């Protein structure tokens, strides 16, 4: 567990087209903690998640992740709006993921990871042919491959059956041991426990 790890956001504001999505959002979360983001549909949960990943700039405010390594090894994201490279197989997707991040690809470890998320036997089929539940599992593998300091789950239980939800819980528990876990959802049943919370309903 990395004691120096801390994700901090201060005074975050995002505007699109002169419309303020949220303002004055503050939060902090350290290793071993879960940050829960709640809010109505359209309140900007996914926008805030994107800002935390570093792919979207806030209109105002700062966000920082201390104690982590390379920017591209910091965050892992699982979300309905994050697509895999569907013309490739799960194993190839992991190979691409590693390469994009500038990491050495360990095929053995990748296979293990894919089996752990429940994709054994489908390692070489194009993701295009998968059901949405299975695609979600590929996304988990893709996000976990580089042991991210921050794991962000947007609607973690989407498209998953009972087995899949058990997987989610296992992943969440493991991330809490390793680093920071961020969960964006409206269904509080999704998280077993959380230490910090941002409620976007109050941030308009």
């Amino acid at each position, binding site marked *: 567990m990395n004691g120096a790890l801390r994700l901090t956001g201060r005074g975050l504001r995002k505007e*699109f*087209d*002169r419309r303020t999505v949220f303002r004055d959002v503050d939060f902090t979360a350290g290793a071993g903690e879960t940050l829960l983001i709640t809010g109505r549909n359209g309140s900007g949960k996914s926008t805030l998640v994107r800002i935390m990943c570093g792919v979207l*700039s806030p209109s105002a405010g700062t966000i920082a992740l201390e104690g982590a390594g390379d920017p591209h090894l910091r965050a892992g994201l699982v979300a309905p709006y994050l697509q895999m490279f569907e013309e490739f197989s799960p194993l190839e997707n992991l190979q691409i993921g590693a390469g994009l991040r500038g990491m050495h690809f360990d095929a053995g470890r990748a296979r293990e990871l894919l089996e752990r998320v429940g994709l054994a036997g489908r390692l070489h089929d194009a993701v295009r042919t998968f059901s949405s539940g299975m695609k979600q599992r590929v996304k988990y593998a893709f996000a976990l491959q580089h042991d991210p300091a921050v794991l962000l789950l947007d609607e973690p239980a989407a498209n998953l059956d009972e087995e899949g939800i058990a997987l989610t819980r296992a992943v969440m528990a493991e991330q809490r041991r390793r680093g920071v876990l961020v969960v964006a959802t409206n269904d509080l049943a999704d998280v077993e426990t959380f230490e910090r919370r941002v409620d976007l309903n109050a941030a308009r």
Partner: protein
Amino acid sequence: MVLKITLGVLLTAVIVFGIGLPMSPHPQAWYELPVIPGLEEKARIIFFHVPTAWLSVVAFLTSMVYAVQYLRTRDLGYDIRSSAAAGLGLMFCILATVTGAVWAKFNWGSYWNWDPRETSIFVLLLIYGAYFSLRSAVEVQEKRATLSSAYAVIAAVTVPFFIFIMPRIMPGLHPGSKGDPEGAGPVVDFKMSPNMRVIFFASLIAFTLLFQWMFSLRVRAAQIEARNQQRG
């Protein structure tokens, strides 16, 4: 207020003197303009056509500078200025192209000849057109600003190449190009008597001030519109 009046007086003077002053072969009095062989009365276009062409380039550079500022700061105010300048630039570019074509008809017999300078102003027109097509295709303000600013910069970067390649490739008809049949020489330095030069530079200044004034009006209008949108 003073600026507006000065501008009005200056422009009126330029128009009156540019068009009204008589031309004679051996100018004696201060108000007589020389006759340039081959151009004669058509030379008067210099007072109007050249400044508009000049301004369409200035506007483009202005737009690019503001575009760079927007990309660096993400302050939408810079984007307002960038597109205001571009809008004016487009207007002056159209004016320059049209006045040029009309003059060409009178002087060389046809509206368009693909002379290097004609082609250059046409390319500038294409760039403006592309810039505004891009802007109208993007609805989200921030993205519209980012993408059109990026385009303005890349266009500005390639324009110098165009200026260099043109003279190599085509001899020109324009007064001042290497193939000028009339031998009238470079546009500004030749045979312009002192009083012509005064009117010409006065025109240049007047048009530049006009640009400044219209630019500040457009920016203010856009800012007010933006504030209204925010409240609503």
